């Protein structure tokens, strides 16, 4: 099996998950249409980049723009790892942001309620 095909097959589930996640966020009104278009375009650019890896790499190779051998299996694993880490980092950031927001809301609500209670007791 071609190593370029392995590269696409390994990353395709992540890209599809990203595309699906954006669509779900749009349909559940969590993101605006503008953001959905931006995120979808981003994932499609990554997919296009991966799909065209072979001709692009060949072009570079034949024009001596790379002084390396053809893509190794290690390169495939490395690129997949980088994309996976980016995917996970973005998910973690979103979760942290939501948690931070909730903590702020909790602190705010607690301060107001304590103030109301203190006022009632006077």
């Amino acid at each position: 099996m071609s190593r370029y095909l392995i590269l696409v097959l390994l990353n395709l589930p992540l890209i599809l998950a990203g595309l699906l996640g954006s669509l779900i966020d749009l349909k559940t009104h969590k993101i605006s249409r503008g953001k959905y278009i931006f995120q979808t375009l981003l994932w499609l650019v990554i997919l296009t980049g991966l799909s065209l890896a072979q001709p692009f790499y060949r072009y570079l190779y034949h024009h001596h723009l790379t002084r390396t051998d053809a893509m190794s299996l290690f390169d495939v694993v490395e690129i997949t790892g980088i994309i996976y880490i980016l995917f996970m980092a973005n998910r973690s950031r979103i979760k942290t942001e939501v948690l931070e927001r909730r903590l702020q809301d909790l602190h705010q609500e607690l301060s107001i309620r304590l103030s109301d209670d203190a006022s009632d007791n006077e």
Partner: protein
Amino acid sequence: MAQPRTKVALIIPAYNEAAVIARVISHLRDTFADSPYEAHIIVVDDGSADATATEAEKAGARVIRHIINTGSGGATATGLSYAQTHGFTVAATLDADGQHEAGDVLNGVKILLGSDTDLLIGSRIIQGENMSLTKKIGNKGLGFITLVLFGINVTDSQSGLRVFSARALAELKWKTSGYEFCSEMLWRARQLELHIGEFPIKAIYTEYSKAKGQNNWNGFNIVKVLLRQRIVELFSE
């Protein structure tokens, strides 16, 4: 039968302002005493280490104490949330260091109630009196950044004197908790299609307020947070 007076919340986010908070409250109370509004002064003590809360209570303000220090944006959000949940029609925020004139706050409330504006900003730049060149440069710089990042053109994007309509109180929320909230608030207001207006105010700079105020270097931190917020927003839920 006499019409009920408009309930106005005067919110003062404060952090370590024990030295001046009583005077700020006293000026506000005197100014609004003869006004047609039912004014309530609310001090949000943002986890001060000094006697800010005690001084504010002694001066007759309602005090909401933050358990931990959250920053100016967090304290303002708490004050506005209080106003919204306690049935206020209008709310105004002002700095606790005494740099705003109580008369300007009253004027802002009058202007907002007489117009369709949802968010009214007291601009220190329109008249430009008393403000040092350094502060003017800093404010103009942050105003430019606000224009570039968020497409909002106001003369004083960092002013602490702001007046909010009932709609703004109910809908306006922001994510940042430091000084950068001033610009982010304008961005959120624009997203909600709220009407934003400005009116000229005077700024009173004393040695105390100069020492407490933001320096231009902190402006770089504000820009950094705003830039990050603008980029992050593209990937957020």
